[in-house]
C-alpha cells in the first residue's frame, strides 16, 4: 500500500496539495488518508446545513470521481495512530501501515473542551465535523431554547444557524465582547447590539461554571456571574486547536502546532505540514510563527507543500489572517492586524453606505497592515482591494488622497507596473 505521497487529512490543505502535486508530478502514487468517512465536505458550510439552507448533497466538495481523475487513492475512515519517521511509514488504527517517500500532515484542528464542571455528564453538541453537524441538526429540530458556550467564530455561526431555526438563545463569551478574533472593541460593541436586537441574550465577560441535567431533561447552566440558564440544547464552541493526535515530539518539532519553515517543511526530512495544524511564517513579519485556522491559508499552504513535496523550492510569504462572515444581518470582515499596537496609526474611513465601520491599521513605517469592516455586504468588495494593498505591503500615503468616497481598483493598480509577468 506504499505510496510516493501520503497525505493525512481530506480538506482544504490536503486537496490543494493534491492539485499542486499533480501539477508537477503526474505519475507518483498519491494516497490520501483521512479519519472521517466519505469524500471531502465543506466544513465552512456545516452551519448552513444545520440551518436547513443546504442539503447533505450540497456539502460535498469532491466526488469519488474527482479523486480518481487526479489519480488519488482515498483511504477514508482510517485514523492514523502513529508516524514512524525513521522507517518512513504511518500506522493506521486498523493495524495496517503505509510507507511514504513524502508525507503531508494536514490533520486540521479539533475542538477544545472548556473546563466546565459536568460537561461530560450532559449531552452537549459541537459544530466541527459532519457528524457533529448531523447530531446538532437533529437535536435542534426538537429544541426551543439553546445555550452557546463561546462567542467566537464557530459559536456565532452555530448561534446564527439556531436562530434561523427559531431557537431562543443565550450566548456566553469569556471576553467582554463577541468575536474577539474578528472585531476590535468598537466593532464588538456595535455587533453585540445587533445581536441583542435579534432577541439573543448575551452574557459577556463570564464563563459557564457548571452544567447539570434536570429531571425534565433540560440542562441547567450556572454562570460565573451567578446567573442560571435552563435550556434544551447546549453547543460548545470554545475554540479549536491543532489536531496533533498522531504527531508526537519524536516525529517532528512541535510548538503550539507543527512547526514548519517557509517551505512548509517540518524539522523531519520528508515530512511536510500545512493547514490548521501547521504553525507557519507570519506574513506580517517579525519572524513569528502563527496558527491561522482559516480556509484561504490552508489552500495556500497545501499548494506550496504539495509543490515542494515533488522537489520544487517554492517559499511561502506567510499566512495572513483574514475572515469574513455575515451574522445577524451584519457583514463583518477582518484582514491582518486589525487591532492597533504601539506605534500603529488608525484610519477610520467614512463615506460608506449606511453606518459602516471601516478601519485601516497602518504601521510605523506607513505600511498598511490590517483592516476591519462592519457593515453591509457590498462594502466587503472594497476590503478585497485593501487586502491586495496589505498583500503588496503598500503604503498608506499612496491611497489616502483617494480613500473617499470609496476604494477603487484604479488605485490598487496604480503602482502595478512593477509586477513581473
Amino acid at each position: 500500500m506504499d505510496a510516493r505521497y501520503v497525505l493525512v487529512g481530506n480538506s482544504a490543505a490536503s486537496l490543494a496539495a493534491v492539485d499542486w502535486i499533480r501539477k508537477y508530478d503526474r505519475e507518483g502514487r498519491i494516497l490520501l488518508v483521512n479519519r472521517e468517512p466519505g469524500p471531502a465536505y465543506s466544513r465552512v458550510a456545516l452551519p448552513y446545513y444545520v440551518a436547513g439552507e443546504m442539503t447533505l448533497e450540497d456539502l460535498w466538495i469532491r466526488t469519488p470521481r474527482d479523486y480518481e481523475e487526479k489519480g488519488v487513492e482515498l483511504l477514508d475512515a482510517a485514523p492514523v495512530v502513529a508516524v514512524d519517521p525513521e522507517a518512513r511509514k504511518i500506522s493506521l488504527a486498523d493495524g495496517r501501515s503505509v510507507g511514504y517517500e513524502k508525507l503531508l500532515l494536514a490533520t486540521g484542528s479539533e475542538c477544545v473542551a472548556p473546563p466546565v464542571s459536568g460537561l461530560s455528564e450532559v449531552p452537549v453538541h459541537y459544530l466541527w465535523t459532519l457528524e457533529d453537524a448531523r447530531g446538532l441538526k437533529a437535536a435542534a429540530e426538537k429544541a426551543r431554547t439553546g445555550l452557546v458556550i463561546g462567542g467566537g467564530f464557530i459559536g456565532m455561526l452555530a448561534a446564527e444557524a439556531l436562530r434561523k431555526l427559531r431557537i431562543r438563545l443565550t450566548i456566553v463569551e469569556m471576553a467582554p465582547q463577541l468575536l474577539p478574533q474578528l472585531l476590535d472593541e468598537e466593532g464588538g460593541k456595535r455587533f453585540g447590539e445587533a445581536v441583542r436586537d435579534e432577541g439573543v441574550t448575551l452574557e459577556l465577560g463570564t464563563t459557564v461554571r457548571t452544567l447539570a441535567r434536570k429531571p425534565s431533561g433540560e440542562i441547567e447552566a450556572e454562570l460565573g456571574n451567578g446567573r442560571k440558564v435552563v435550556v434544551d440544547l447546549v453547543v460548545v464552541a470554545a475554540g479549536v486547536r491543532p489536531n496533533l493526535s498522531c504527531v508526537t515530539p519524536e516525529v517532528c518539532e512541535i510548538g503550539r502546532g507543527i512547526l514548519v519553515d517557509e517551505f512548509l517543511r517540518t524539522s523531519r526530512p520528508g515530512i511536510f505540514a500545512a493547514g490548521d495544524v501547521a504553525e507557519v511564517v507570519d506574513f506580517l513579519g517579525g519572524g513569528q510563527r502563527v496558527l491561522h485556522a482559516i480556509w484561504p491559508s490552508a489552500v495556500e499552504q497545501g499548494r506550496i507543500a504539495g509543490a515542494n513535496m515533488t522537489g520544487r523550492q517554492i517559499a511561502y510569504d506567510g499566512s495572513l489572517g483574514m475572515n469574513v462572515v455575515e451574522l445577524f444581518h451584519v457583514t463583518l470582515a477582518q484582514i491582518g492586524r486589525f487591532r492597533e499596537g504601539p506605534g500603529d496609526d488608525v484610519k477610520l474611513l467614512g463615506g460608506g453606505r449606511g453606518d459602516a465601520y471601516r478601519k485601516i491599521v497602518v504601521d510605523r513605517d506607513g505600511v498598511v497592515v490590517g483592516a476591519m469592516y462592519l457593515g453591509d455586504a457590498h462594502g466587503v468588495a472594497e476590503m478585497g482591494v485593501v487586502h491586495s494593498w496589505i498583500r503588496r505591503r503598500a503604503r498608506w500615503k499612496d491611497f489616502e488622497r483617494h480613500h473617499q468616497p470609496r476604494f477603487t481598483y484604479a488605485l490598487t493598480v496604480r503602482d502595478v507596473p512593477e509586477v513581473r509577468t
Partner: protein
Amino acid sequence: MKQIVVHQEKCTACRECELACSFSHEGVFNPALSRIRVNDFYEEQFYLPLTCVHCADMPCGTVCPTVAIRRDPDGTVRVLEERCIGCKMCLLACPFGVMGFAPERGVAQNCDLCGGDPECVKFCVPGALEFAEVETDAKAKQKFFASVVHRALAGT
C-alpha cells in the same frame, strides 16, 4: 477568450452600463445591483468602468470553501448559486473589488458576460466598452490597465 474591454478614455460616467446590467439580470434599474461599476474620480475627471476580468489565477475560486466558483469551458468564471453559502470570502479575495453580492439571494455574483452577448456593451453610447478577444493572462491585462490608470492619475 472574448471579454469586456474597457476603453477608459471614452467613458463619460453616464452609467448606462450599470442600468443595462441591472435590468437584464435583475429586471430592475438599480445601479447597486449592477455587476459592472463605474468608478469615478471627479477631481481628475477620470472614470473607469470595472467588472470581472475572469482572471487566470482566480483568487475568488481559490478561497471558496464550497467550491462554488468555477471556470466554464469558454473561460467564464461563474458562481454556482446553489453551492454558494454567501460567506463573501471571494469578495475579500478579489484584488479588483469586482466580486459583487446579491443580498436578496444571499449569494456572490460576478459578470457572466451575459452568456456571450453583454448588455452593458450594447448600451455603451460613447463606445468605452467593447466585447472583444483579449489575452487570458490577467497579469498582462492588469499591467496594461495599470499603465492607463497611472498616466491619468499621475502627479496626483
